[in-house]
């Protein structure tokens, strides 16, 4: 099972909740849109997905 963090930039309203409560500090908001922080070590815990009010960030699971 392959798991990836997906960000739907079009739906992101830049509230910053996901970035503020990310346990690894693996997200940041730049110009009102969320981005991954490369090298911060996202562990795909999915807390961002649980708290995103706009459904703009989630963990995608795929068979691979």
């Amino acid at each position, binding site marked *: 099972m392959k798991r990836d963090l997906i960000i739907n930039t079009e739906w992101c309203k830049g509230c910053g*909740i996901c970035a503020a*409560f990310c346990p690894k500090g693996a997200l940041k908001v730049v110009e009102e849109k969320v981005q991954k922080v490369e090298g911060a070590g996202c562990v795909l815990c999915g807390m961002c997905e649980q708290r995103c009010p706009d*459904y703009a960030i989630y963990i995608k699971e795929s068979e691979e």
Partner: protein
Amino acid sequence: MVDMTNVSKNTMNTADIIYKYMRPEHLPHIWCPGCGNGIILRAIAQAMENAKIDRNKTVLVSGIGCSSRAAGYIDCNSLHTTHGRAIAFATGIKMAHPELEVIVITGDGDSSAIGGNHLIHAARRNIGLTVVVMNNNIYGMTGGQYSPTTPHLEYGTTAPYGNIDQPFDIAELAMGAGATFAARGAVYHSALLAKTIEKGIRHKGFSIIDVASLCPTYYGRKNKKGSAVDMMRYQKDNTVMVEKAKTMTEEELNGKIVIGVLRDKEAPEYSEEYAKLVEKVKGGNK
């Protein structure tokens, strides 16, 4: 600390929830950046999945206000009604079709001010509805007027010098009126919220889940509560589980949001009692 051991199971990912339970053509939703209503809506969809209810036999009813938009986003039978009357319409649906699962999504003003009477009487009758209150402590859609849940001395556009009213506690109000299931949730604890709503859906009889939402645009701005993140952090620091609250003094609980299931008991359900009455009266005429 909230026990996460039994709440993190059975979680669908957001993309699956959107394609299974929502109407993606209507998304992104209209709520403001940082509004808690989106989190509550996701928790409701997750709860519907976990409770394994048939969407074709589910009706989602909403009234007027920010919360009312929710009925349009979930793909099941939807009814968007007049201000405060969501519970009244839902009562009608349940009486006509007791086999349906009826979920009401309402706001603090919609349920406790304009529709206050409908709420207490639905609770009194123990009719099988699940009421989810998106409680943001203000009338958001109409521009920030103070609502019955705006805390004492806080501000709204209609309370420029501070609100002198004492606020309603919606869960306590429903319990006082006889609700057999009453719970409180908070958007910060979203996984627990989904679990709590699931319990409400599974409960036979009237159930109410009063959810502390966020309104950074009106309530937050008027009362200098900071950004959506600051308001979330406030919830993180000020929510107490009901089990923990029992060990705390009144002084310690001052200003805290007690979350979890506050009451869960059994009593005869109204539409079933009505069906029994119909049978009894028919039998008498033979």
